[in-house]
């Protein structure tokens, strides 16, 4: 079986339950005696709460309790990252109470919770709660936030959270002074809403007999929630708090964070000594799930006469929303500013990021988190540079790529890339997409009255989010290692407990492949358990494409320990010296002989230690390992998009999409391909369809699936995917991560294609999403302008 499981498209173990309706999502769980919570949310973007009168609601039949901010005085929802401003001062970190204290700061802010025997009673009774608000001017537009007289938090002047820089300003200025040409761009990275199909939900449970709390929640990282909620918000020790994240219906970042509702149901369960359940309606998701992106950026690149990049300067404003969500401050800085070298050997880089508070939902990581924003500005800028230099867009990239033999490569913005081959990736994408004979297709489309365009983008991603020492020096308040426990049962089957969490990524299969391969078992003999703090020793969860790159290595390390102990047991059973024992295909053998013991025999001996080296070795065969890598991993790739635009309607159709990526070693290509598809769809969504809109009063205009345009099946094409995998040097398994790349690489390729299609009309810029209206305006604007000239 050697080598047969790794790299093989093993069908997913988890699919049986999902396909037959036996998944177990949080809302599917009901606890005996359960009550239901309805949360009253702020209808205002910014307002003082003058008075809450809940007496009529509280008297309603079936209502158990009504709680306001006055009742629930607990700790603030904590932020996991600290960013320092350039002047050394810490970021402003205003409190984030689970239920508003005196003031609401965004539409959807929690004001009051009604708990009743049924959800319908709670919802009806909520209408009887009288809340007297005094509306305040809302801060909505980031550009005006710094000058606004209105403050989101009274003690945060100018609404400025931090003002951060990285890079060598002098080197950059010197390079610009002697540049042959400078290319500039100004753009917006549109605000998005993750909209995982499963709305968030939480059930708090309290055991009167021993004072133990259990929280069932839609989370990507139950141990992190236990730590944050237990230690900072409710002061419940870990030993008294269990957090279960069962099947979770998609996350994309939005289910990383510790949310108010988790604290509310857990706290209320303790108060009422009965389980309390809350499930978001989709409209609540829109106004309470953390949003993503929302940057405004100015960037410029200095070039020599051959179009080689001499220096890059980037200024970004990043919207934090009304409060700091768990990861928020690190997204535009450590996951954005430090990636600005991209795939290029730009010698000098300087960037400044101003993070501002506004009266909008908190903004945090959404698939890619900082890296899509970075890739988008960089790749759009490189396209402008190509135009300035009159170079082919692929050629200017080729000239500036870091060469395959220059790895490891130290960028001027802190990261050290361990491996990659950007030239080959792009060459492959160019071949696969038919880049070179595109003009023929453009001409053919023109005959049909269509505007056809092609766009290209390359990207680099830092993922496998870990190195605790590195992230700690950058401001993380926790370590980001991963933990695994491997339990070989007496008869040889295996359970793996992982601290990562699968909400679509297929860990139950991929991790089983890893273990089965190593121990000579079948995938069916390996069970993978995740999402329960009572079962798994510890874990940091799943985000930042880290599960295999960090969690997988932790499993491999636990397996090393299992095999090492197994060898000791086998040596005893086979009466040989430990150094002569080899392990392969599930068998411990004495080198050069046919004497062997199978793993099952060794594990049985470990649990029934009648003939066992008991003086030297403990019984049992179970090992735990923690893994903390020394570096990030660096997937890279090249995406090519081809579009056709109908000039009469402005509708853009994607006719070809090609992605060629470097994931390092791949365990299950079927699953990896699926991750790429999903990411690309979200990237295309950002580029063509999705955007979150607030009006000047802070009202959320795109507050439902009728207003916020999610990609549907008929909006997308089938995708062409390919790989050029260069094993990661700094990762013990050689893996890099694949979860986010699609969303990172695709938006600039799509917008590049739209601009290319419109370029015969003189269009050089397009904001996301390139909706039919925007495209039509671009077409007709130029037409009218030209006619007027």
């Amino acid at each position, binding site marked *: 079986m050697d080598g047969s499981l790794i790299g093989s498209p093993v069908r997913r173990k988890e699919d049986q*339950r999902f396909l*037959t309706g036996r998944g177990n999502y949080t809302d599917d769980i009901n606890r005996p005696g359960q009550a239901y919570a309805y949360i009253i949310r702020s209808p205002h973007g910014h307002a003082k709460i003058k008075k809450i009168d809940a007496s009529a609601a509280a008297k309603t039949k079936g209502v158990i309790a009504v709680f306001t901010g006055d009742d629930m005085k607990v700790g603030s929802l904590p932020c996991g990252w600290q960013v320092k401003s350039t002047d050394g001062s810490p970021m402003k970190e205003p409190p984030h109470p689970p239920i508003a204290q005196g003031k609401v700061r965004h539409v959807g802010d929690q004001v009051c919770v009604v708990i009743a025997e049924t959800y*319908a009673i709670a919802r009806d009774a909520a209408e009887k709660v009288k809340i007297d608000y005094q509306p305040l001017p809302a801060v909505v537009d980031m550009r005006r936030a710094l000058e606004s007289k209105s403050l989101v938090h009274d003690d945060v002047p100018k609404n400025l959270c931090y003002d951060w820089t990285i890079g060598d300003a002098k080197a950059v200025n010197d390079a610009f002074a002697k540049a042959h040409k400078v290319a500039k761009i100004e753009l917006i990275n549109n605000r998005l809403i*993750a909209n*995982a199909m499963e709305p968030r939900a939480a059930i708090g449970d309290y055991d009167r007999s021993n004072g133990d709390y259990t929280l069932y929640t839609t989370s990507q990282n139950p141990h992190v929630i236990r730590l944050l909620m237990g230690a900072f918000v409710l002061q419940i020790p870990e030993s008294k708090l269990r957090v279960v994240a069962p099947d979770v219906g998609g996350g994309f970042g939005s289910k990383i964070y510790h949310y108010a509702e988790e604290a509310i149901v857990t706290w209320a369960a303790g108060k009422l000594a009965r389980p309390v359940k809350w499930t978001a309606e989709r409209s609540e998701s829109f106004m309470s799930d953390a949003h993503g992106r929302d940057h405004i950026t100015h960037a410029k690149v200095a070039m020599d006469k051959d179009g080689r990049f001499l220096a890059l300067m980037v200024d970004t404003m990043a919207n934090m929303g009304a409060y700091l969500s768990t990861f928020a401050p690190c997204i535009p800085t450590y996951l954005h500013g430090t990636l600005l070298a991209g795939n290029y050997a730009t010698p000098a880089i300087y960037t400044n990021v101003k993070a501002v508070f506004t009266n909008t939902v908190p903004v945090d990581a959404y698939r890619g988190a900082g890296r899509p924003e970075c890739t988008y500005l960089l790749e759009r800028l490189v396209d402008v540079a190509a135009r300035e230099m009159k170079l082919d867009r692929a050629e200017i990239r080729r000239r500036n790529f870091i060469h395959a033999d220059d790895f490891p490569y130290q960028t001027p913005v802190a990261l050290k890339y361990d491996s990659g081959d950007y030239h080959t990736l792009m060459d492959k994408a160019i071949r696969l997409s038919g880049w070179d004979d595109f003009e023929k297709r453009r001409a053919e489309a023109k005959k049909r009255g269509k505007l056809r365009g092609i766009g290209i983008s390359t990207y680099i991603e830092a993922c496998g989010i870990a190195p605790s020492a590195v992230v700690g020096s950058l401001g993380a308040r926790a370590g980001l290692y991963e933990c695994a426990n491997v339990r070989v049962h007496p008869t040889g089957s295996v359970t793996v407990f992982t601290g990562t969490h699968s909400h*679509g990524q297929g860990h139950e299969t991929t991790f089983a492949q890893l273990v089965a391969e190593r121990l000579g078992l079948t995938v069916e003999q390996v069970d993978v358990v995740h999402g329960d703090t009572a079962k798994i020793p510890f874990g940091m969860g799943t985000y930042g494409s880290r599960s295999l790159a960090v969690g997988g290595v932790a499993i491999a390390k636990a397996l090393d320990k299992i095999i090492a102990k197994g060898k000791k047991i086998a040596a005893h059973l086979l009466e040989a010296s430990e150094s002569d024992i080899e392990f392969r295909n599930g068998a411990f053998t004495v080198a050069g002989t046919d004497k062997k013991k199978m793993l099952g025999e060794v594990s049985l001996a470990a649990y029934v230690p009648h003939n066992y080296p008991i003086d030297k070795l403990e019984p049992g065969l179970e090992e735990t390992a923690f893994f903390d890598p020394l570096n990030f991993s660096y997937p890279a790739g090249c995406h090519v998009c081809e579009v056709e635009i109908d000039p009469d309607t402005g509708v853009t159709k994607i006719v070809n999409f090609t992605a060629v990526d470097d994931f390092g070693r791949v365990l299950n290509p079927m699953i990896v391909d699926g991750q790429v598809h*999903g990411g690309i769809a979200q990237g295309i969504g950002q580029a063509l369809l999705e955007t979150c809109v607030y009006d000047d009063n802070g009202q959320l205009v795109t507050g439902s699936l009728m207003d916020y345009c999610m990609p549907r*099946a008929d909006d997308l094409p089938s995708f062409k995917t390919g790989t050029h995998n260069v094993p990661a040097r700094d990762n013990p398994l050689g893996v890099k991560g694949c979860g986010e790349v699609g969303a990172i690489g695709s938006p600039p390729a799509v917008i590049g294609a739209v601009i290319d299609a419109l370029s015969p009309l003189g269009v050089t810029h397009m904001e996301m999403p390139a909706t039919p209206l925007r495209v039509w305006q671009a077409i007709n604007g130029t037409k009218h302008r030209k006619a007027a000239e």
Partner: protein
Amino acid sequence: MASVTITVNGQKRTADVEPRTLLVQLLRENHGLTGTHVGCDTSQCGACVIHVNGKSVKACTMLAVQADGASVTTIEGLADGATLHPMQEAFRDNHGLQCGFCTPGMVMSAVDLVQHNADPSEQEIRDWLEGNICRCTGYHNIVKSVKAGAAAMRKTKTKKK
């Protein structure tokens, strides 16, 4: 309260519900059939698609009382005992699901498509699934799954004949 009797996955079941109860609530809360999901409050997502009298319906767009007397199939009733329906099998074989939340609705909707159109083209599949949102897969593998599922359903049909 109103009494609602439906035949669900071949079993006759009665429940007393408030008249405003949605069919999807009746299934999930009264009958414990949690395979049918709720992904939105505007009838957009399709996570709740089931079959009512053989036709695909968004179970959040119908009141439970409207289904009184109807025959309902949910995702739990699609497989033949331990043997998956060919459409379920095709979704597994083509990696047509990731988090699984949209999956019950997708599968039920796809089965109804094939009842209308035994051999749908890629475009016809994409058009039909316009009312089912998936945030995970980018639809690429869902479309592949439905194609394969349709082919498998055609085969079983010929075999039965």
